[in-house]
């Protein structure tokens, strides 16, 4: 794993993959492990794959998923069951094949000289942060994770965070674990206490927007991973644009990770289910 502060996004592949395991993690969330040697070796933290779940014509578009972890030849994907595609994904059994395009997109960057990083994850926002926590910790960066979810059971990805972070702070909407309240309530304190060199955030757009403001107020650079509806996933169709201070950018190639300071937040761009 390299600690380069910025990187060129690698070559994209179309790979036939095999399901190694697919298990329920908690209510409505699954973890699928795919044997995908070529993509697993090339993927970097914050990148994603575009998964062809159905080969029928009932739903034809691929579905984008972050790589939670890459372990030898295997991709780990944490997914939330929301609609047609993720319901079908949840039914995939060991041994079934699918094809993926990946690794895709521009992932997290590690600014030169980073000694301490704050990772802020809301709900499934933990998905693209597993590899990031691993890379940071391998590079000797001190990691604090601030994670929020509706309930204790919905705090996903805790395994990798516990293994890599110096501190894992949690908040739940119902108080069943950690602070009672939103994850944004933890950020203020962590910014003050830890004085991180960089903040990484992923979660519901309303939450990411607040964290962006909190980081800006503390004068800490902030990167955000954004979701957009995607057709091609490779930069050709312009489905997935994000309005930035540099103009319209494509989430699938220029993102999904953006410099939060450059994002022009616009509620209408949030995918409908969020």
């Amino acid at each position, binding site marked *: 794993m390299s600690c380069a502060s910025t990187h060129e996004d690698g070559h994209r592949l*179309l790979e036939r993959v095999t399901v190694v395991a697919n298990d329920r993690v908690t209510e409505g969330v699954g973890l699928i492990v795919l044997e995908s040697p070529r993509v697993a070796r090339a993927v970097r933290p914050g990148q994603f794959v575009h998964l062809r779940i159905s080969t029928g*014509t009932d739903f034809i578009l691929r579905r984008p998923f972050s790589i939670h972890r890459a372990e030898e030849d295997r991709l780990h994907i944490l997914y939330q069951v929301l609609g047609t595609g993720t319901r079908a994904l949840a039914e995939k059994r060991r041994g079934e094949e699918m094809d993926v395009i990946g690794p895709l997109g521009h992932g997290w960057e590690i600014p030169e000289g980073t000694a301490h990083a704050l990772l802020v994850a809301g709900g499934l926002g933990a998905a693209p942060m597993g590899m990031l926590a691993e890379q940071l910790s391998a590079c000797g960066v001190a990691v604090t994770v601030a994670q929020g979810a509706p309930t204790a059971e919905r705090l996903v990805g805790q395994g990798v965070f516990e293994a890599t972070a110096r501190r894992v702070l949690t908040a739940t909407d119902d108080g069943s674990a950690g602070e009672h309240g939103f994850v944004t309530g933890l950020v203020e304190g962590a910014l003050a206490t830890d004085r991180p060199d960089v903040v990484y955030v992923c979660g519901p757009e309303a939450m990411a927007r607040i964290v962006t403001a909190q980081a800006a107020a503390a004068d800490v650079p902030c990167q955000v991973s954004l979701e957009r509806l995607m057709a091609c996933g490779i930069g050709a169709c312009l489905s997935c644009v994000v309005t930035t201070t540099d103009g319209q950018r494509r989430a699938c190639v220029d993102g999904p990770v953006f410099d939060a300071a450059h994002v022009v937040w616009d509620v209408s*761009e949030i995918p409908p289910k969020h």
Partner: protein
Amino acid sequence: MESAHNINVDMSVRIGALELRNPVMTGSGTFAAGREYAEFMDLGRLGAVVTKGVSLNPWAGNASPRIAETASGMLNSIGLQNPGVESFCANDLAWLAEQDVPVIVNVSGHSLAEYVAVTERLDAEDAIDALELNISCPNVDEGGMAFGTSCAAAADVTRAVRAATGKTLIVKLSPNVTDIAEIARSVEAEGADAVSLINTLLGMAIDTDTWRPKLARTVGGLSGPAIKPVAVRMVWQVASAVSVPVVGMGGIMNAEDAVEFMLAGATAVAVGTGNFVDPATTMHVVDGLERYCRERGIDRVSALTGALKR
């Protein structure tokens, strides 16, 4: 039939002055200018690359969300976002010119004058083999489909653009009309060398949780397998009505689909939404078409065009 399996199939077809090595093109707006797909396939094996629509000045396109999935299809309201013709020529076209594939540029405009200005600019580029005049985009407020839904407007813009270029001119028709054959005849009469169809069907989807349209722009264009029966019917009607070649598209996902369009009267075909499903779909269609012909002892693919039996 045994020996038929060894025949060489002549895959070439002709559209106006343009000889294509095979009938498989890309649907405008689904393939950008090809660069993104070059990692997944060999552009040099395509009949032609048809680029995203290009306008005189940069267009920002529509607000997001810009797509929505539907049964066997998708809606899009991208809105012809593009960097304008100068940037297109300097970047996309310069790159495409280096590839070994015919280039067809899709031309957009808000007004007749703008269509002409873009055409004049593109006419000066040697790297361009043909122009596809888009008078059928449902996703812009002015121009676009408005030109493609009346015979008089379609004729006017075709006449003006025809006068502005000596290149092969393909006019792309809208399916959102009562009589597409009539529109096709109007543009043929004004000098179109070919027609392409169908562009997307105007559609809409509503989120029953939020009570909002799934597309920020409310309506958008429906594409994919869902529309194939409408597209095949229109290709058949148009091919029976005009004598210029027809480029057929709408829901093509595999070679069988392409055969359907050719039997209905298409000389060439284009893959649009299919590129999103599998970035190598065009290659599968090229290979599958050749195999289809070989297995049936058909020695040139153009023999399929209009071969429907009734």
